């Protein structure tokens, strides 16, 4: 799904404190299936921008079009339905329900949609299988390693077959081996399903899985370019698919072409 942000602003107004202008006029267009890494120092507005993209927060100004829809004009309930239908989330701290078993965590997004229970359960098991954790279906998060928990979270994000996957520091809490495993998985599944990924990261190795790296500073985009040095471990990309015209001409072709 095509993503189009124009002049997005987000100002927080904490009571009794000065307003915080977290995002100050961002224009960004992301093509379907594109993988974008947001980089920048802490507090630069990455997470806020991701939240706006994921419909978890409303911009205070600007236009956000997701596909053909102006999603910034949707009601809270419509936004919730849109999240349930089209958007998957992967967080730095996994954000699994601590008391629910893995399969129930994975099935959670489907409970907001009118599938039958049998279909749901099958889909949950398939999703767990896809992240290699079918054998952990009946474990609760505390019984799993960080990497396993993040893979459960990926299964949960992908079970709705989203068109957009939002990942906020997906490898931030993981050692490099687990991080790589998680990123392989994420990009592999997203790749085969044509899912657009927008992720925030500090880690260049993680950012290297993206087709495009956007740097932010003080709430604005500063640079927009393909990864400087494509990781050797990158899976065969969809470079040919990503070759369409882009608003950002610094990115004429897939990074694999480089």
């Amino acid at each position, binding site marked *: 799904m095509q993503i189009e942000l124009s002049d997005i602003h987000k100002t927080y107004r904490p009571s009794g404190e000065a307003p915080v202008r977290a995002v100050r006029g961002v224009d960004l267009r992301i093509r379907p299936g594109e993988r974008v890494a947001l980089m920048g120092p802490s507090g630069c507005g990455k997470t806020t921008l991701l939240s706006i993209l994921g*419909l978890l927060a409303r911009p205070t100004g600007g236009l956000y079009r997701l596909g053909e829809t102006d999603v910034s004009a949707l009601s809270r309930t419509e936004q919730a339905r849109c999240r349930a239908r089209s958007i998957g989330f992967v967080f730095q701290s996994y954000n699994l329900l601590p008391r629910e078993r893995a399969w129930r965590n994975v099935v959670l997004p489907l409970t907001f949609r009118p599938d039958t229970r049998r279909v749901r359960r099958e889909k949950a098991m398939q999703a767990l299988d896809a992240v290699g954790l079918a054998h952990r279906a009946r474990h609760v998060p505390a019984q799993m390693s960080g990497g396993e928990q993040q893979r459960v979270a990926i299964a949960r994000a992908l079970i709705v077959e989203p068109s957009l996957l939002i990942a906020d520091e997906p490898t931030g809490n993981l050692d490099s081996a687990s991080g790589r495993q998680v990123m392989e998985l994420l990009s592999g599944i997203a790749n085969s399903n044509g899912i657009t990924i927008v992720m925030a990261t500090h880690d260049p190795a993680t950012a290297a899985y993206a087709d495009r790296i956007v740097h932010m500073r003080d709430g604005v985009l500063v640079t927009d370019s393909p990864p400087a040095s494509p990781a050797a471990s990158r899976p065969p990309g969809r470079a040919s698919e990503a070759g369409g015209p882009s608003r950002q001409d610094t990115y004429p072709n897939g990074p694999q072409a480089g």
Partner: protein
Amino acid sequence: MDALYTAGALLRELNTNRLRRLLSILGVIIGTGAVISTLAVVEGGRRQLAAHLEKLGVNLVYLEDTYEHDAAAEPGDLERPGTALNMPVEEEALKAAFKESVMLGGHGLERAVVRPPTLAPDDIAFLRRRFPEAEHVEPQMLHWTRIGPVAGKPIGALLEGSTPGGAVVRRLRVAAGRYLCPLDLTDARRVCVLGAAMAGKLFGATDVVGRELSALGARWTVVGVLEPKGSMMRFDYDKLIVMPLTTLQERTGLSLVNGVLIGARGTGAALRLRRDLLDAVLPRLNRRKPDEFQVFCQDELMEQYEETLGTFKILMVAIAAFSLLVSGIGIMNIMLVSVRERTREIGIWKAVGAADGDVLAYFLGESMLTCLLGGTLGVLLGVFLGAQVSGIIAGAMAETSGWVPVFRIEFVLLSFGTAALVGLLSGLFPAVVAARLEPLEALRYE
């Protein structure tokens, strides 16, 4: 949100923080327990009274003249209350009867029953004409006197002058011999029917029919013994001595009677009849105040019971309502804590697609389920309490039949409904708080 998934999450949630939750629903438990036990005890008593009245005779209306004579007055001061009746005043006989009743009374209850008779045969005839819909209009005369078995020690007893219909309308049954027959009255025979206890007192248990007793200077043949019946409308039927009205009038020299037993057709009819009786009789007897008559009616007894216990019920319901209110506030508090503790979880739900309505429904469900749990425990408590209270009442009344609490399904449904309502109301505010959370802020909540 999917019902089954939600149910699983809710049950898991109920299982955590069990002590906290139990404490918060204590008020619901006590409230529903109080409601259930009160309703069950009252209902049990109502059924018992209904059964009792059924035994005594259905649809009986009893008109009694309760004009207050000054009991302390000398017999000479006794005057027939102001009356428009055209009838001879049997002054001497009346004085004698009154004197004797004052002398012999002294047992409080019995004495109160025996007022000098004031209703004339005309009055009875008037009632028969005025209320053709009544199945029976049977005069009743009461007379306290000394009686004794032949060659025995005299005892005080209540004589009742009655008619054959008096047995029908009151459902008196004879255990041995027979009741009064029309010929007993037309011939003014000296026969009598004894209440069960009186028969035993006078003659012992066996072969009472055919024996004789002396009363009012004459000998009377016992022709029948009544089945034990118990008390009703201040009479102890088991201690009665029933005689033909005509014979009793002849021996006492009185033509007046104390009351009238009226049998109505159907339950509602008794209440109607009772109302009309007062309207019709008061002007005729030229009385000013309705309380100069007492009109008893079984439906009315039932009403009185409901009225008396209504107060009790209101009190208990007030206690229950209060404890439910307090409990509701406690549950609201616990729910607010629960919402705060689970803010991050709510954020996760919202991120993966829960709408405000889903979150609202979940927390309303949680508080209602909590309250229904309280309601269930309360019903159990109520069943236990009901049995205990009924046992205490039955013990205090020395009732061998026992006072059994009656638990109707409506009571249980009412309790559950109330508990659910408390859950709904106390959960509403916390649920709204949860539903209104911004997804991003909820996710970031530490």
